[in-house]
């Protein structure tokens, strides 16, 4: 699939922001039930940074629209469209998140803040899920049409979010061993989920072939030939590109794919894990870790798009997707 930069930026930044915010809100709720609410400033800053990431991502997302003047309509099909739902819940989240941060900044606590924290947590999770479901609901794309995708989005959002949180705390000169432990657990969990996803990608389940796409078994074959006979593209019907080849015909070169896989493995998982495990407190290293993780996520998201092979590629000559 064509990997639109604006969409990569959107999902990575918003994902990290939503994950981070969810953890801030969750942490707040936990404290609310365990002890008196303590308006911890670094957390509020972290939550604000998270919201900035979310809003930045949402703004980026409008850049991928070819006709943005109709974007205001995007909430219309809430009933059936994950993109509509994402739009609605994203807006709701931003509103609730602002309210929550306002409560924190102004030092308000108690039940109101707990309720708003719960709401923003649920909304954050919902937005992440909706974003993932935009892709996972698409049957023509095997690489996306699996519950592994929303799982990966959720885990990566939280893994990247928690790394941002740890980094923000470090930059503010503080930290939390609990948070660090949670972060390590999340990054490991995300890595395991990714490993499982890549096994699924390379596997043989739910594949569609060119022969199936053409209807070879339904009789589209030479008379007398068995239904298992092979098909191939002779001519795609146009000499240069089309919207379809540009949007769906992207195939990464082996070299680019290898580079991206390494960048993803190191950037998204290995290096952040090392940094977390090391416990190093340097703010500069924290910023570095965030940048490395974001770069790794960009590579991960890029791969997510370019390794996704839509069934329309079959009609353009691919043998199996």
């Amino acid at each position, binding site marked *: 699939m064509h990997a639109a930069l604006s969409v990569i930026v959107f999902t990575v930044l918003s994902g990290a922001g939503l994950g981070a915010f969810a953890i801030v809100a969750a942490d707040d709720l936990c404290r609310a039930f365990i002890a008196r609410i303590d308006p911890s400033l670094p957390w509020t800053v972290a939550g604000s940074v998270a919201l900035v990431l979310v809003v930045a991502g949402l703004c980026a997302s409008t850049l991928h629209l070819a006709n943005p003047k109709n974007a205001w309509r995007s909430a219309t099909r809430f009933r059936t469209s994950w993109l509509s739902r994402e739009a609605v819940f994203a807006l709701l989240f931003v509103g609730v998140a602002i309210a929550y941060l306002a409560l924190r900044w102004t030092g308000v606590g108690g039940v109101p803040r707990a309720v708003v924290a719960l709401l923003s947590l649920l909304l954050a999770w919902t937005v992440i899920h909706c974003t993932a479901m935009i892709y996972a609901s*698409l049957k023509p794309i095997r690489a996306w049409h699996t519950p592994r995708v929303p799982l990966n989005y959720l885990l990566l959002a939280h893994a990247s979010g928690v790394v941002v949180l740890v980094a923000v705390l470090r930059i503010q000169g503080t930290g939390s061993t609990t948070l660090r432990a949670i972060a390590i657990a999340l990054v490991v969990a995300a890595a395991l989920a990714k490993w499982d996803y890549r096994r699924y990608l390379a596997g043989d389940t739910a594949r569609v072939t060119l022969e199936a796409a053409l209807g*070879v078994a339904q009789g589209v074959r030479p008379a007398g030939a068995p239904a298992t006979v092979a098909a191939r593209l002779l001519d795609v019907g146009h000499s240069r590109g089309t919207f*379809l080849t540009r949007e769906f015909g992207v195939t990464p070169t082996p070299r680019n794919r290898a580079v991206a896989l390494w960048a993803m493995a190191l950037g998204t998982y290995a290096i952040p894990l090392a940094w977390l495990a090391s416990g190093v407190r340097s703010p500069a290293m924290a910023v570095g870790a965030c940048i490395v993780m974001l770069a790794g996520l960009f590579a991960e998201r890029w791969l997510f798009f370019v390794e996704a092979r839509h069934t329309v590629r079959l009609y353009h000559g691919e043998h199996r997707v």
Partner: protein
Amino acid sequence: MKLGLVIDLDTCVGCHACATACKEWNGASAISGPLTDDSPYGADPTGVWFNRVRHYEVGEYPGCKTINFPMSCLHCEDAACVSVCPTGASYKREDGIVLVDQDRCMGCNLCAWACPYGARELDPASGTMKKCTLCVDRIYDTALPVEEREPACVLACPTHARHFGDFEDPQSKVSKLTAERQGFGLLGELDYKPVNRYLPPRVPPVTAPAPAPEAASAGPLSRLIARARLALAG
């Protein structure tokens, strides 16, 4: 109503008449025209088409078959392109036709991703998604003679490999053809319930191998002469 097309793979010779007639009609149609063409005389000619013909081979030489394969929107009964559309631009009519409302589309591409057949194309000039309209502005246009109230592709097809009608009517041409020739929908396993039907190539007539003539002692020329005499004698 369940309007759609039947495409006969037994007679499609891959001439692209359907593709160009469609482009011509819809280019100046108020529904979604114009259909932009970029680099029309340049290095990278590309444009918006609703119907494309691709060509495949099945089997191996010399027993291979060439299949010419036109594809346009199949106006699915369970149209994912409609359900994923956030703005409500993509919608399905009561007569079955799936359309894109050009005033509402924001060009997010999601419907194109949802369509397994590549039936939708983004017009870079309008920023909106466009697709086969089943020539809705022809089939209901009472100013046209009745026999011309059909999609442009159906009218143009020189081998009459395209048929238009209501699949909900068991007596319609499209229903009967589908039943007679085992018409099938594409990628049925994805469960979009495509309405258009493709007719697989007919099984060629079986010719009984002609028996070899009886062996004779006389040479072929003599036999020929004898038969000629016989044939012309009577």
